[in-house]
């Protein structure tokens, strides 16, 4: 979706303002927000693509006014409600009022190290051979889906070069919506700065994205 998350090339946000010796957390609630988000995800009711889509589906004004942990928590409330784990009454009262759906699993403290060390690999075996090869000229499609996609707007309808053929990976555009993993080949595609930004682009700039096969057509 052409949502607030799709930031590449947007203007007006001001300087980056890196913080010297930045702590991992700026308030204790951020620690709990990280942990609650990971524990809730570990219930197995949604995948990473659905959670990303919940975040980018915040109203743009809300998204831009929120810190990243605030975005996480707001999206988490959406996911928990959608999957029947919390209700509006629960949230309004701040305690468990309504019954909850049954999770696939509950992450226990003793299992945390193993679960974090394992992660959630998204590569999948893929039956078809890759359509493109190293060095191929490709053009990204120009599309504007209302659902989740990982092709940023700045890189749509642009010509680039296949710089690497990666692996088969879960396709987020369907996986985010409960429509299956449908793995596709992923490619690293490099674009000249001028192809993306036109006149005035930094002549030394190359930008690459990682693109699922269906985002690309031969140039």
């Amino acid at each position, binding site marked *: 979706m052409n949502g607030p998350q799709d930031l590449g090339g947007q203007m007006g946000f001001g300087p980056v303002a890196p913080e010297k010796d930045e702590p991992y957390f700026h308030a204790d609630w951020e620690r709990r927000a990280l942990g609650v988000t990971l524990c809730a995800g570990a219930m197995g009711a949604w995948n990473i693509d659905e959670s990303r889509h919940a975040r980018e589906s915040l109203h743009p004004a809300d998204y831009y006014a929120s810190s*990243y942990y605030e975005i996480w928590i707001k999206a988490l409330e959406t996911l928990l409600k959608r999957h029947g784990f919390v209700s509006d009454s629960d949230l309004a009262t701040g305690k468990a009022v309504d019954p909850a759906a049954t999770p696939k699993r509950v992450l226990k403290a003793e299992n945390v190290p193993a679960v974090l060390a394992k992660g959630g690999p998204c*590569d999948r075996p893929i039956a078809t051979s890759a359509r493109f090869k190293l060095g191929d000229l490709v053009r990204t499609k120009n599309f504007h889906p209302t659902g989740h996609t990982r092709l940023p707007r700045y890189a749509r309808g642009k010509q680039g070069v296949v710089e690497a053929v990666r692996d088969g990976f879960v396709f987020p555009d369907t996986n985010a919506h409960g429509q299956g993993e449908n793995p596709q080949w992923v490619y690293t595609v*490099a674009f000249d700065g001028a192809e993306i930004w036109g006149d005035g682009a930094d002549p030394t700039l190359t930008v690459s994205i990682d693109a699922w096969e269906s985002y690309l057509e031969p140039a």
Partner: protein
Amino acid sequence: MAMSHNHDHHHDNELDPFAARVRALETILTQKGLIDPTAIDVIVDTYETKIGPRNGAKVVAKAWVDADYAEWLKRDATAAIGSLGYTGRQGEHMQAVFNTADTHNLVVCTLCSCYPWSVLGLPPVWYKAPPYRSRAVIDPRGVLEEFGLTLPRTTKIRVWDSTAELRYLVVPMRPEGTEGWSEERLADLVTRDAMIGTGLAREPA
């Protein structure tokens, strides 16, 4: 910075509405038996004390002193990094990109906050915020200036937008004057920002 959390006190409830909102959510989920609050403590402790940029610095230092390891890192970063014990969440599919005399690499996630947690830990706030995410792809030199890094006009800039599940680690160039240094001493020169591309490795003092 590690802290143990006492679930019986409500020190930040009255201070900040968002803190109260997070506490309420944690309370609801705990009462329903959906989460184990002590699991949260372990997660937080892991990312405050165990997984951070020191991991990535060891990878880089090893690549500087061991050409075979550097080659492995280039070819199969996930395995090469995994051999040092750094695996797992948000490091499942690693790529290492090497700075050279004429090319500087910079990593961003314009669409969210993808970041190689297994080697760099949790991302800093600026990495997740709109100014960096919007400008890194269109004005990388301007962004680098804000980090105090001015590159020669002739240096090629390669920006990697992490739009899929690959996670990128920049291997900065080894500073001059470090011949014969141990991996451990070299690792002290490798900053988090150097491994994102918003900095260079530190010069030896």
